[in-house]
């Protein structure tokens, strides 16, 4: 019985595949866009496809890419985390300040706990105190940055320990450690969101909060946990940047939240929640990283990069909206 059913489903899906190239295109448009971007890049920049350049791209992507995974969890539930830049800067400053004075595992642990706690504060503001996510995290982001500035007196902390720099600039085989870390976060994030009941609950929650609450899901806990994850990811990125630069500074996170959100949004995760996926965010991040790589290689001014990036974000959201209205009618 069930195999027959499966075959039937398969058949209808297959028919759909050929009949509805259009809706497929709408659903996987971001992949097509990515392929186009890569193709154009390979033409415009002959060295683009060299392994060294590709590793360089991922290495550049690592900081934003790791944070974009946490952000995806938040945005699937319909939230938004503007404070990642603040947490990122705070964690980078903190770890640079004490990495020399204690064993590294302890320093890492403390920093990760700070990031997690900062995220949970966001979660509490959003759930218990019902502050709209945008406002709550905009506020806490400013607070976190401010704390980092006060703590460091706006001066960078330098790390002497050489072992500390391994994470940010070391290599395993020929592959940078940061790229390993990025892939690890990608894989874990993808598995958790796609294959656990926790992940399913987040989709349900983002799709319909009231129905989820009435279904007995612990809505407030789930929402808080996503902000916690986002804070944790920001802490990882903060450690990574401090390790890469050998220093921690409070003013590094000012605009990074926008890049993180851009990666998620370009991938096609809905701003209104309930829809999206980690693979989308990965593709979105890769598009941004590839463009930035090519622009750099063409010596395009960063000001123009900013203009292009803005246009791409708007275009992605417009496309997403268009695809949504098309596929839903």
């Amino acid at each position, binding site marked *: 019985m069930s195999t027959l059913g499966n075959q039937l489903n398969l058949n209808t899906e297959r028919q759909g595949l050929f009949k509805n190239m259009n809706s497929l295109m709408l659903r996987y448009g971001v992949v097509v866009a990515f392929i186009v971007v890569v193709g154009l890049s390979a033409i415009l920049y002959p060295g683009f496809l060299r392994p060294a350049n590709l590793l360089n791209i991922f290495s550049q992507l690592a900081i934003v890419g790791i944070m974009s995974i946490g952000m995806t969890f938040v945005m699937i539930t319909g939230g938004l985390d503007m404070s990642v830049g603040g947490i990122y800067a705070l964690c980078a400053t903190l770890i640079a300040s004490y990495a020399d004075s204690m064993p590294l595992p302890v320093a890492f642990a403390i920093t990760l706990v700070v990031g997690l706690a900062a995220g949970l504060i966001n979660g509490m503001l959003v759930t218990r105190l019902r502050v709209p996510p945008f406002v709550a995290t905009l506020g806490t982001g400013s607070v976190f940055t401010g704390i980092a500035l006060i703590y460091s007196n706006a001066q960078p902390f330098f790390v002497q320990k050489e072992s500390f720099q391994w994470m940010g600039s070391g290599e395993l085989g020929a592959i940078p450690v940061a790229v390993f870390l990025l892939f690890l976060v990608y894989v874990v994030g993808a598995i958790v969101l796609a294959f656990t*009941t926790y992940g399913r609950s987040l989709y349900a929650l983002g799709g*319909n909060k*009231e*129905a989820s609450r009435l*279904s*007995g899901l612990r809505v407030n806990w789930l929402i808080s946990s996503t902000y916690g994850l986002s804070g944790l990811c920001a802490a990882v990125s903060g450690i990574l940047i401090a390790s890469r630069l050998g220093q921690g500074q409070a003013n590094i996170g000012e605009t990074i939240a926008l890049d993180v959100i851009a990666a998620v949004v370009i991938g096609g995760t809905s701003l209104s929640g*309930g829809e999206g996926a980690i693979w989308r965010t990965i593709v979105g991040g890769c598009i941004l990283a590839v463009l930035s790589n090519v622009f750099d290689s063409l010596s395009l001014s960063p000001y123009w990069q900013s203009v292009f990036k803005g246009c791409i974000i708007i275009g992605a959201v417009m496309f997403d909206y268009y695809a949504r209205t098309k596929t839903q009618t």
Partner: protein
Amino acid sequence: MSGGAVAEAAPVKKEMAIEISELIKSYGGFRALNGVNIDIQRGEIHSLVGQNGAGKSTLLGILSGRTAPSEGSVRIFGSELHYGDPRSSRKLGVATIYQELTIAPNLSALENVFLGQLLSVKGFISRKRMTKRYMELCALMGVNISPLQRAGNMSIADQQMLEIMRGLQLDAGILILDEPTASLAPPERKSLLKTIKTLQAGGITIIYVSHHLDEVLELSDSVTILRNGEKIVTQPRAYWTKDKLVSSMLGAEVAEEIVRVTQETRHEDAAPGPELLRATGVTVPGAIEDIAITLHAGEIVGIGGLVGSGRTTLVRALAGLEPKSTGSLWIEGKQVKWPREPGYPMSLGIALAPEDRKHQGLVLGMSCEDNINMVNFSQVKKLGFYRKAKAGHIADGLSKRFGLTRPIHTLCRNLSGGNQQKVLLAKVCNLRPKVLIVDEPTRGIDIGVKVEVLKILRQLANEGMAIVIISSELEEVIAVSNRVLVLSKGRLVKELSQRSEISVDHILQATF
């Protein structure tokens, strides 16, 4: 064209106020109206009767100019309507009063009547002219409402009078009333019915839509029955009895079916099963007060009462959705903590299928499978991972049981209301509850599916569940319930437990 031909062919005895011919309205492949012909004589009170989804609202929408028909024609006092243009409908003399009032509470009675159409003299607002006209309207309706009173301080009934005056203000010849008595108490109903008669005497043609068949019989000169977008019959008042109205409204087959469900379902001779749930002193400040309810295995308990009587609040309190509620709760004889959050009563075996499927019941962007499983993730979880195969198996079994006619991977957004309701029931039953509460389980779904849903509920009860049902369609409550508790203004006013007692009349009498 065809409209004209029909009008000429019909032997015109009296002047027609409205001639509707071959009216069709399709939404995609669905025909909300399918070739409807109705002639309404000038000066009569003509009632439209039908189930939800029969096409009444669509018809009213076309007459009032809110919707444009797909085919066919409507003539008002002989001239053709400009379809889909509310202003044109008003110009031809059609005034529509909807169920939901559109009174501006901060304005005076007078200002509300002339809202958006102030009378003026040479460009200046003329209070004198408006007051004069206001008094004329009051006289026409046989009411006396001070023009300076603040509308927000007036009773619902008086606000409704204002609404009607606003409709008549522009010399309307035809007044459409959609469920005008739904939120009125009996004395107010009586006076509204009197007002309608007065208006008729004043030469106004009235189209009356109501679920209250007694009112329809009391008021109408003729009655048209709509069912599934078709006109079933139009007959003068003398032809109709309540039974005739019900059976032609439901269709002979369905009427039989409902009777059959009724007969096979209510076996009060059988001793009730063991007590599953007892709640006493259930109070939600400002909504319900000191209500007691006991549920036994195998019985269906209906909750009767109007919208706003506190019936939904009562079941929400039992399901832990009213944080301010107080009361005492026993499950299978053991006292348990009073629920104030939704997860806890679920663990006690109380499941609620909420009234608003789309906003409270289902996640429309997810598949049936995910919706069914989201209520009980713990049984499809292994080390935190979602066991897709097992979840699919569970969803498949439940959706078959509840007669879902689409595959389980379909997004709920793409299901009909009936199928959505089945998914919702499958979902809450995935908790394997002892007590199932269903709020408006048949709202907005086809009559055939309604009967199916009622049958499923009966089956579940026969297997040992206790079921609580709330429905605005009292006939359904009566059809399946072993007992009916009647609520009014937040209090339990009557319990009807004998078969002979359970009837629409008894419920309504107890309500007031």
